[in-house]
């Protein structure tokens, strides 16, 4: 029993990332009718926003610390972050340690602007082109974005730790009456999961309870009619694209402590997120979220040793197998609507 709960928990953090990326992907499908192969790159850019902020905050100068000596007995040169010098070691150091959560504030405007520029500068011209062209141009863009990041940050993963307050693990099992240490779950993963729930909730309530969201939902259902009502649907869709980019971006920011970001993480997540969208049903927001968590958990179960002993290698392919099975039996996915992306 405790093993099962542990696997479910383990699946949640990856599932959260899948769900957040897939949410943005399907939002873009549904509103703009565009297949965005660059969405994984947006996730990656978000992660590198965190890296950038960490670098900026910990910008340092070297001082000679007479109290410490190196092995030759000379005073040691230590690098001291400007922030600590200005704000004192407690506040300055604290800010540096909290750079990942702070990066959300930094990433949101960056991603909104990037999304806006992408949509107006590129995607807009591809609304009437075939899906194959959309895939190709966004695929090219994804390559460009990841190479730019590689140029500035190098090819190696860059560790970006979570604030020390979240460094430990939660002994989740004790809460449920299991033995201590039966179910250990890192604090940061708990934070990531809760955070993704908040974001998903925010996106849904934004679409559900604001006039803007209502127009967007109406536009997803029937773009032409909404256009005929004299509502400028294109402008709203542009903003929607920015929001989808921001969701992917902050999903990337918060993911950095779980996996050190590297330049090709976007591509790795993109393929799986597409599978998630297809399983959930193109254009279905609840479907994307449901499928994201479901596949994250299934993947985690498949990587249990007990399962792997029976079906070796199943953890590597389970998600693809599910996607193939779903596509063949329920072409619209778990919760897909009729007429979305059908030929």
């Amino acid at each position, binding site marked *: 029993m405790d093993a099962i709960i542990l696997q479910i928990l383990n699946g949640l953090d990856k599932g959260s990332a899948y769900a957040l990326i897939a949410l943005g992907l399907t939002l873009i499908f549904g509103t703009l009718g565009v297949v965005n192969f660059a969405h994984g790159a947006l996730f990656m850019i978000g992660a590198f926003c965190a890296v950038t902020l960490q670098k900026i905050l910990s910008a340092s100068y070297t001082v000679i610390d007479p109290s410490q000596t190196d092995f030759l007995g000379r005073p040691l040169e230590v690098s001291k972050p400007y922030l600590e010098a200005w704000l004192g070691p407690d506040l300055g150091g604290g800010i540096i340690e909290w750079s990942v959560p702070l990066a959300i504030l930094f990433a949101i405007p960056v991603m909104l602007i990037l999304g806006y520029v992408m949509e107006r500068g590129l995607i807009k011209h591809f609304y009437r*082109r075939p899906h194959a062209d959309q895939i190709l141009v966004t695929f090219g863009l994804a390559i460009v974005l990841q190479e730019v990041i590689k140029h500035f940050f190098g090819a190696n993963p860059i560790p970006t730790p979570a604030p020390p307050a979240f460094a430990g693990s939660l002994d989740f099992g004790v809460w449920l009456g299991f033995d201590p240490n039966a179910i250990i779950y890192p604090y940061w993963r708990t934070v990531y999961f809760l955070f993704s729930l908040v974001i998903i909730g925010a996106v849904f309530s934004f679409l559900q309870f604001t006039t803007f969201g209502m127009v967007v939902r109406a536009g997803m259902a029937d773009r032409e009619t909404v256009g005929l009502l004299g509502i400028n649907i294109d402008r709203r869709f542009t903003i929607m694209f920015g929001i989808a980019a921001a969701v992917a971006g902050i999903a990337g920011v918060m993911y950095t402590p779980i996996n050190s970001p590297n330049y090709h993480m976007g591509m790795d997540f993109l393929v799986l997120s597409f599978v998630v969208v297809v399983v959930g049903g193109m254009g279905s927001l609840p479907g994307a979220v449901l499928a994201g968590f479901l596949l994250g958990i299934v993947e985690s179960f498949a990587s249990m040793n007990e399962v792997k002993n029976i079906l070796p*290698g199943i953890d*590597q392919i389970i998600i693809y197998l599910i996607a193939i099975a779903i596509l063949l039996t329920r072409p619209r996915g778990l919760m897909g609507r009729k007429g979305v992306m059908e030929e």
Partner: protein
Amino acid sequence: MFGLEKKDAALLLIVAVVTLCAPILLNPFPAGSEMAQFNAGYPDLMQRFAIYGIFAIGFNILFGLTGYLSFGHAAFLGVGSYSAVWMFKLLSMNIIPGIILSVIVAGLFSLVIGFISLRRSGIYFSILTLAFAQMSYNLAYSVLTPITNGETGLQLSLNDPRVLDAARTTGSLPVTTLFGAEMRSATSVQFGVWEWQFSTGFYVSAVLMLLALYLAIRIFRSPFGIMLRAVKSNQNRMSYTGLNVRPYTLAAFVISGMYAGLAGGLLAAMDPLAGAERMQWTASGEVVIMTILGGAGTLLGPIIGAGFIKYFENIFSKINDNVLHDWFAFLPDGLNDFVVTVIAPFFGDGWNLTMGLMFMAVVIFLPGGLVDGARRIGRLFRRKPAGAKRPDAATKPAE
């Protein structure tokens, strides 16, 4: 000639002459000169031109004619490589059995994947093929290690049985041959300041590429080719004409899978090892880029695209900051540094960035690819002199 129309026969003949003279044509700069680094006429690179040309020609039969965008074709290339290496390990270092097996295995593999993937079209088809390719890649890395040798990749070893070859007594690994002619052997010819290398491996690949092109021309011009273009144009009308669409798309898928298998087998024949990274989806993306860049749906486009990508990949990767500083040495120091800093990201390791930008530019501005671009430029130049005769030309189609 060979059952081709005059225009196509001429095209094939020109490609054949250019390909067979490639070792000379691709080495325009004298050996040892400053510009020699831009020469492409060495065997390793020319082989890649021909092999990736085959890969792209095959991909074009599927994508260019039917419009089905597969994102998993690298899987067939990888399967072809593994099959060929196994043949070299078990049977013989002669490349013929290896290449035949790689085409057959890739054909069977694509039959299975195509049969399932072609139940859906459009974006769903792309994602299904992507899923299958990623699955193959993951499996090759993990569970299938006994067959694929996992991360290390499948290699020859001295203990391999090689039942058809005579037992070897020397301690070195055998090399791939075609009835005794070693693939890696090359004849160097000095002609004035130039140096040309004629290698067996390149000529084997080149002849197979010409054969591949010939078959592609036959397919393009045949009733079967018309059917495939009809699939792209209007599937609804096709089924209301009494045609079941699936066998046609499946046939195109299997043919292009076999082309990929041939390319994979040849890669292994030139350098007998096979790794899983050949199956990764970025490798599938590469053949898509080659085809689109050259011109999807055209006969020459894929070959040009493959040559273009492989050439610039090779050249760009060699150019580092020092080379750039040399180029702009005529500029004042500060400006020199500035220029080099600005353009350096696009060279050396930055080749992928340049390729991505180039690819985007082609998709945005020139959806017909380089072949279409050349046509447009040709028309631009021809317009003026042809102006007087124009009425003539306009009535011609009406005859």
